[in-house]
Each structure stands twice: as structure tokens, then as C-alpha cells.
């Protein structure tokens, strides 16, 4: 039984960079901007954060540098898409490729160099609680931050007036403009803030979860985060749940590697991605209009709970996601 709690705690820890990046992406997509450069940004930020922390010996400086890189890439994306009106997806994709290669090129001197790491800091008293202590209070500060950022994002989006503006920016920017809000400036702000979080998530890999730097260090985590944000319906708690599910799949995969020594490792490495996409697609399929129609033909007794569940699962994208805003 104790082993289960330890495993679950490992899942929570392993998901921490994904959660931080996913919340950053959720913020900018809620404001209507897709930051498709996510995977490249994470790599470049992971490399920069590691390099800065290694050379200065200061972890905080490393994280700050990573956040700065994330914000800088987001600013470039904003410059092309928000100011110059180019396609967000095209610019984002090019940036993803560019940042990935840039991280390999610039990061060459740091490959497999041992470096600093975020120290394990159990929280006194709370860490000794049964179960809860193991699950939530025997980690390091980055993981604690990943726990806090989920309710913080949810509260920001659904509990504050700022959140109303953020969501409205993604739904109908013309309406926000009519209320006297500078749409472009606000979208920049959200995009850059989200980008900084993505950068921090990158450093969470290189300075904490997967300490050090190597070629393609985050192993495509950024792309899966993009998918999780979409299938999570742009809702912080559901998105976080997706991140934890993916982390769990990864851990199961690593465990099975030792259990099945003859099985090709390549398949085991890729399996979590395939399984994750499969699960996400199933969830979305269940909430599709076709499923809705099928449900409507069932007898009345089944209909209500089924339609209720479908409605709960349904995720609609922000109506203006990816669309440029032009002042009338």
C-alpha cells in the first residue's frame, strides 16, 4: 500500500513541468493566442536555465533566465502574429523548430555536464502526515509551485475580473474592445506571461526533474502539453488532470521496461504518447455531436444521465482562438 502512495507521489512530481507549461499555454490560449512554439521554447529555456545556473551557481538566476527566454520567444510570436497579423500557427511552428535547433546548437558545451539541482525540501510537520505527507509535502519547491499554480490559474480565470477580460479576449475581442480595453496590448501581456511560465517549465526539467542537459532533453513534452490543453477544454483542473495522466503513463512505461527486458525500448518510450492521444480522443469522441444524437435515441431513463455526462465532458474552444483582431 505504501508503495502505491510513493508511486502516486512520483506521478505528481513527474507532472510538475507539464502542469506549469500547460497553465501557461492555457492562459495565452484563453486570451485567444496559440503559442505553438511551446516545445521549442521549453527546450531553449531548459538549456538556458541550466547553463545560467551552472555558470553562476545560482538556481534562482537559472529559473529567471529560463522565464526570460520563454517571454522573449512569446514576444517574437506576438510581434509577428499580433502586431503584423501573420498566422499564429505558422509563426509558432517555425519558432518551435528554430528554438529546438538553437537549443541543440548553443547547448552543445553543456551536454551531460553535472550541474546544480533544486534541493529536496520536505515541509516540516506536514511531511509526517500519513498518506498526505507522502503525496504532497515531500517534494521540492518547483513541485509545490506546480500544485499551487493550478488553483491559482483557475481562480484567476473564473474568480476575478481580470479573468473575465482574459476569457472575453479569447471569445470575442471586438466586445472587449467596445468596452475600452486595448485588445492587442492585453493579448501581448497574457502571451508573454504564459511564455514565461513555459520557460520556467523548461527549467523545471533541466534543473529538477531530469537534471542536466542533453539533445532533445524534454523528449517532446511540449507537444503533448499542447494536446492536453486542447483536450482538457482550456479548463485548468481538467488540463492538470491530463498532465497527471500522462505522467502516470510514462511511469508505468518505465516500470514495464524493467519488467519486460526483451521488449523494444523504443516502443515503450513512445507508448505513453500514443496512449495519451488515444485517451484524449476517446474523451472527445464521447462528447461529440454524433454521440449526442446517438444518446438522444436512447430510452428516456438513460438519456438524462448520459446527456449530463456528455455536457460535462464537452469542451468548446475559445471562439476567437487563433484569430487576429483588427480594430474596426
Amino acid at each position, binding site marked *: 500500500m505504501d508503495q502505491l502512495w510513493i508511486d502516486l507521489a512520483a506521478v505528481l512530481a513527474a507532472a510538475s513541468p507539464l502542469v506549469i507549461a500547460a497553465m501557461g499555454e492555457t492562459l495565452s490560449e484563453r486570451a485567444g493566442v496559440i503559442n505553438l512554439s511551446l516545445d521549442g521554447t521549453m527546450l531553449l529555456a531548459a538549456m538556458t536555465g541550466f547553463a545560467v545556473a551552472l555558470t553562476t551557481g545560482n538556481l534562482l538566476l537559472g529559473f529567471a533566465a529560463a522565464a526570460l527566454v520563454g517571454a522573449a520567444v512569446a514576444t517574437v510570436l506576438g510581434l509577428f502574429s499580433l502586431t503584423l497579423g501573420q498566422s499564429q500557427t505558422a509563426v509558432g511552428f517555425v519558432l518551435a523548430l528554430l528554438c529546438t535547433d538553437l537549443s541543440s546548437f548553443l547547448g552543445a558545451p553543456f551536454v551531460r555536464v553535472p550541474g546544480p539541482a533544486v534541493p529536496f525540501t520536505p515541509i516540516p510537520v506536514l511531511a509526517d502526515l500519513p498518506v498526505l505527507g507522502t503525496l504532497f509535502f515531500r517534494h521540492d519547491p518547483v513541485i509545490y509551485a506546480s500544485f499551487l499554480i493550478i488553483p491559482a490559474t483557475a481562480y484567476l480565470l473564473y474568480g476575478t475580473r481580470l479573468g*473575465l477580460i482574459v476569457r472575453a479576449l479569447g*471569445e*470575442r475581442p471586438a*466586445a472587449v474592445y467596445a468596452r*475600452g480595453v486595448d485588445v492587442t496590448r492585453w493579448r501581448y501581456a497574457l502571451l508573454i506571461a504564459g511564455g514565461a511560465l513555459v520557460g520556467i517549465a523548461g527549467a523545471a526539467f533541466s534543473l529538477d526533474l531530469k537534471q542536466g542537459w542533453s539533445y532533445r532533453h524534454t523528449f517532446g513534452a511540449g507537444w503533448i502539453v499542447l494536446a492536453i490543453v486542447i483536450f482538457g477544454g482550456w479548463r485548468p483542473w481538467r488540463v492538470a488532470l491530463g498532465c497527471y495522466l500522462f505522467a502516470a503513463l510514462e511511469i508505468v512505461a518505465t516500470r514495464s521496461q524493467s519488467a519486460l527486458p526483451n521488449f523494444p525500448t523504443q516502443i515503450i518510450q513512445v507508448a505513453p504518447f500514443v496512449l495519451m492521444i488515444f485517451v484524449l480522443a476517446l474523451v472527445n469522441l464521447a462528447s461529440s455531436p454524433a454521440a449526442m444524437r446517438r444518446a438522444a435515441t436512447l430510452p428516456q431513463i438513460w438519456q438524462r444521465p448520459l446527456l449530463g455526462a456528455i455536457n460535462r465532458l464537452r469542451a*468548446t474552444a475559445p471562439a476567437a482562438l487563433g484569430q487576429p483582431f483588427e480594430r474596426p
Partner: protein
Amino acid sequence: MHIAVENLTKRFGPVCANDRLTVSFAAGQIHGVLGENGAGKSTLMKLLSGYIQPDEGRIVFNDMPRRLRGPGDALAAGVGMVQQEPLDIPAFTVLENLLCAAPPGVFRSRRAAQIALLDLAERLGFPVDPAARLDQLTIGQRQQVEIMRLLLCGAQVLILDEPTTGITAAQARALFAALRQIAAEGRTVLFVSHKLEEVAELCHTVTVLRNGQVVPPGQLPMPQPQEYLLALMFGDSGAAPPIYRPLPAIDAPPVWELRNVTVRSGALHLVDLNHRFAAGRIIGLAGLDGSGQQVLLRLLAGQQAPDRGQVLVNGRDLTGAGAIAFRQAGVEYLPADRLHDGMIGALSLADHFALLQRNGLLVDRRRAEELARQAIADYQIKATPVTPIASLSGGNQQRAMLALIPPTARGILAEQPTRGLDVASARAIWSRLQARRDDGCCIIFSSPDLDEIMEYSDEVIVCFAGRIGPPIPRALLSAGRLAELIGGVGFDALVDVAR
């Protein structure tokens, strides 16, 4: 608040949309602004509410010249505009929409906002549920929400752009009562419309725009004779309205026949429909928004299959055959949202004719352009064969859609055929439809505008809460009776008599 414009000029390229306009609007009154499409009404209203900036001239609020850099500036100065499609956030609840980016200090809390909203709603007679999502509401309800939002955010001047388009007669009555109340409280209301009757009913003054100028210079007190206003709006070309003429009964086989049809769409159940729609007449579907008119039209167009019963077109059973089979049988459907459901905005008229070509792999461009040129001449469409449809005006789009209906069509289903069109364009559309009727078509249309139903229908069918009434000959119906039936008054008796 007293607002005035002096020598206001706005050009779009070579077009002078507002040409040295000078006019003022006093506080505590409802001011009508009349003009046909393209006369410059919308430009003036956008200038007043900060959406666009003037090239010359100035805007004066309470004797203070103002420079409005955006709609936020205008609202801060006390001018709020209600767009034809309210600029709200459909995914939000009424309350969230009210709170979103509200001026600082207006609402201290969610609760305070809710209380203020319910309070104002009661004063204006608008029923409102603060927790309802806006995309579940009708345009009329969203308009009410938007009016209340602007007032609560401090608007002293309310500008309404064609506010009665797309709302029901009952909602229009509620709107008018509320606007009178708002004006009585000392605010200024600008009512932009091309419907003379509404301006006559509601407004204290009227300003007529033609070709970007005020004719005659300055405001006119209401009432004014309708003929005079029409002459001002259209110059000398204002044609007299067509005279209603009763139609002799035609002994042709019915275009559509419904036998014991039951159909379900969302919350609406249309049960046990038995109808015959004869050729050579125009049938108007009247009813409140969502009373079943649209379901009936979609059923007759083959876009919705019945759950039970049979649908016959020209005597052939086409139950569940799909929209393509219905089209081949001579049924044409003109949706209300022309550009969204009806035509392809990026394609030209010639391209649309090319799309209708069925033979061979290649497009016969010459033939398509020939047909397009013919249609442009026949229907007086202001376009070339290669102009993208999206760049045409609403009236021309509607004419283009009519032109695409093949001459072999036996039944035409039109959903709000004159939505958003000015008087002249609407008349042109109707003269085309009447010509089709005289050729032996059966035309069924729905409209939220009771006057349109009364003016053009040969028979009227009232829809009430998902029930479809029997056809009533136009000659036996008065406007008052129709308004009652739409609200359900005497509807049961009508159905019983028909049985």
C-alpha cells in the same frame, strides 16, 4: 446629455460617407435617424460612439468638444451604442458579461452588480435571468441585456442601430416602452432605422440622411407625413408601395403535402401535421422566434427528416430522401443567414453558376459567365460576374441568391427574405418573388415583421409554441388579429374550427 456634430466629414476612399454633417440631439428625447442603406447613418453613429474617427469637423457633448479615440472613450464620456448584433460575449452569463471590463468603481461586487441589474430590469420591464448564458438567448433578449449593460456603465446617450431587425413584435413593443422610459429619465436616445412606421410611433424628432448629408438641413419635429419622409429618403425615385391584390384559387396539384408528419427538433415537437401547400401562392409563416417556423421550413426543404409520417413533393413521396433529392424535385431553400448558409462569400456569381454545372469534369467558364451576366441584367444586381459575393451589399446578395434559383423550381422556401434590407431593396426582392409566384411557384416565407407578412402573403400560417395553425386567407385577416394569434390568443379556437 446634449450631443451635437459640426461639419462632420468622413471619407472611405473616394466615397464621402458623411459630408459636412451638422445636427444636434437634445437630451430627454428619442431622435429618429432615417435613411436608406448607404445613406451614412451607420457612419455617423460609429463616429459618435468612437468606433471610427472623423476626417474633419467635431463632436460636441454638452457644449464640450470631444476627441473619441475608441468606443471606450465614448462610453466614459457617456455614449453607448447597441449594435445590430449586440457586442456581448456569447459564452458568458448575463452577469459575467455585465462585469467584464466594466468601468472601475461601477460595481463593487458580483452581488451589487446583480442587484443593480435586476433593479434596472424591473424598471424597464425586461425579464432577465442573470445566470443565463447569452448564447442561449434570442437576439432580442441579448439586445435588452446590452441596453441594460450600457446604462449601468453610465451611458447618458443610447444609440440603437436598426434595433428591431431580428426581434419579435412583442420584444419590439417592450423595447419601445423601455426607450420611452429611458428618455423620460432625461437620457438621449438615437434610434437609427429605415422603417418609417417605427420612427413615427416612437420618435420626438427625425433626422433624414441621404448620400451622406442631412436633408433638409437640421432636425424635423415628428410627426411628419409618411410620403414626405419617403421623398426625403429616396429623392424623387421613391416608388409607391405595391397594392395588395387578392389571388384567385388555383386548381394545381399541391407542391408539398404533409401526411401525419411528426418531427422533433431540440425542445420543439411538431405533432401530426397535415397540410397541402398549393402552387401559385405566397404563404407567410408568422410567429414568435422559434415557434416552429424554421423547423417547418427545414422539413419542407428536406434538411430535416420527419420522425413519422410522409412528405410528398409534387405528389412523389420523398420522406427522408435528403436535401439533394428535394432540390432535384424543384424545391429551393433561401436561408436567413445569406453569407453563412446560403452562398460562398469568396466566390463570384459566375463561380456560383459554375458550381451548379453537373456535367463533365471541367468548368464551362464561358457558359457560367454568360448566365451570371444574364442574371445581373435580369435582377439588376450591382456587380460584375467576377465580383466576390461577400463584397456585395445585402440587397444585392439576396438578389443574387434569387437569381441562382433555376426557372424549373416549383417551390421556394425563404427564411426572412428581406432581413437587413432597406425599403427599396426589399420591394425589389418581393417583386421578383411575386413574379415567381405568378409563374406557378409556391413560395413559403417566414418573417418576424408582421407588416411584411400582411403585405405580401396570399395565405398566412401562424406558428405558436411548436404548433402549426391552418392557412388563413390574407383577406380574412387583420393586423390586430394576427398579432393576437402570434401570442396564442384565440389560437386553439382557430385550430378547432379548421378541424
